[in-house]
């Protein structure tokens, strides 16, 4: 049985760990034997305030790595909601960071989930873990997609040895995000 192809955009501002979040999804899915691609927005766009990456996870070889109409969007700041909500495929899942976004998304044909991502992260004493909270929420909301354990392992693989000491914190934030989304 083929799993559906996931076309994901993760977006926020620099420092929110947008690229790392995308990489974690890819590594976890790659270890599960699926085809993956990850491509960041790059160059001049990187200096404009938002950073985003496209992630494709599929049972067949990935065609275009650039996601034009995402089925999943994780929007960690306000400009990200404004930029990607209109581009989403009907029926898609939009997880938005209610700690920072003042203008909530409005589309009726999407599954819209608000997540206090930065707030959840701050409870662990850092504001840099909003990406982890959002990934936890995505795992909770997309049944059969990836497991928390797979992301745990991906964290050790993706993060440099120097930063690995922060992984226990990252894992707690991941789980807090998972719980918050499961409860909602």
């Amino acid at each position, binding site marked *: 049985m083929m799993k559906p192809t996931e076309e994901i955009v993760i977006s926020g501002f620099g420092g929110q760990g947008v690229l790392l979040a995308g990489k974690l999804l*890819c590594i976890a899915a790659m270890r599960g034997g699926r*085809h993956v691609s990850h491509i960041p927005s*790059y*160059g*001049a766009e990187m200096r404009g305030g938002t950073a985003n990456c496209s992630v494709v996870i599929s049972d067949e*070889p990935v065609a*275009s790595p*650039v996601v034009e109409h995402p089925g999943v969007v994780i929007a960690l700041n306000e400009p990200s909601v404004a930029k990607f909500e209109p581009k989403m495929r009907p029926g898609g899942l939009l997880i938005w960071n209610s700690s920072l976004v003042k203008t909530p998304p409005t589309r009726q044909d999407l599954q819209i989930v608000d997540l206090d991502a930065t707030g959840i992260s701050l409870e662990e004493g850092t504001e840099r873990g909003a990406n982890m909270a959002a990934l936890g929420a995505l795992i909770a909301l997309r049944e059969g997609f990836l497991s928390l354990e797979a992301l745990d392992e991906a964290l050790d693989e993706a993060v440099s040895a120097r930063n690995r000491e922060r992984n226990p914190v990252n894992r707690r934030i991941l789980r807090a995000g998972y719980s918050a989304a499961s409860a909602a």
Partner: protein
Amino acid sequence: MSKKTVLMKGNEALAEAALIAGCRHYFAYPITPQNEIPAYMAKRMPELGGVFLQAESELAAINMVMGAAAGGARTMTSSSSPGMALKQEGISYISGAELPCVLVNVMRGGPGLGGIAGAQGDYFQATRGGGNGDYRNIVLAPGNAQELADFTVDAFDLADEYRIPVMILADGFLGQMSEAVVLPEPTGKTFEKDWALTGAKDRNKRLVASLRLAEGSLEAHNLHLQKKYDSITQALRRFETYKTDDADYVLVAYGTSARISRQAVDRLREAGVKAGLFRPTSLWPFPDKELHELARKAKRILTVEMSLGQMVEDVRLAVEGRCPVEFHGRAGGALPALDDVIETVMRFEREEVTHVHAS
């Protein structure tokens, strides 16, 4: 998947592969979207006792490559389209002097400064040669991070075997994308370089040059080069076919365009349309005979490019009118849309049916 599989950015997979192939002399000038290559080399070369040098210009970089190659080193430079345009002078000289080296073009949109998103507008430049004179370079066209690594290792061997520059022609999407990669092993091939400049100790002096002024000597040199190019053309036409055995419609595409075309083939097959993909992995030499054979059985050929029509000229030369050759392209950093490619072939199918009914 084995544990050796790693998630790697295309540019970095290529850079690591160059190191695996024994490249210890790398010279380049920064330009997007290939900046990960110099950054990677800057970090790794000192660890390996190799040379990374950020040149003052693209011209200096390619000429440093020429110097290192003349000294017998495995050497490489990388750039993107506008930077590659600047390197053409050096590439012509290196070709004339028959030095081996690896060149990487992670293409972006042009003309001029253009943009930074991936494109395929340098096909002519790469396959025809942007510099002066009658010369050819081997041009390899990878389609994913794995091939960026594999083709790069191979490129160093081909360069040494034929004493020719070998170009990896990628694009910004391939360079920037991270995918699963199993890093290749060194091939272990070694090449005697009895032409390299090492100092005339206990032997006659050697000369590496492209200037030939004596009457007839330049033509003789050109004929010699041509003979070499002919033998490469015989030995090295590379391609991959996908579902072409019974294909009515053959898509021809390389690099990122081929990824999209391959998926279009799958969708068309699901819709009952017999489509296939012919993907050249060497652009020079172009696998013309092989494509010609497919064209004899196909109803139509569709070339898909991230340019407004460059490789399509080679496709037409190969097909020699055996069937109509159509074109679909996007330019300036845009990607061919999957739906557009599918719809183009669907239109062929409708037209063929109409044609049959009318006749």
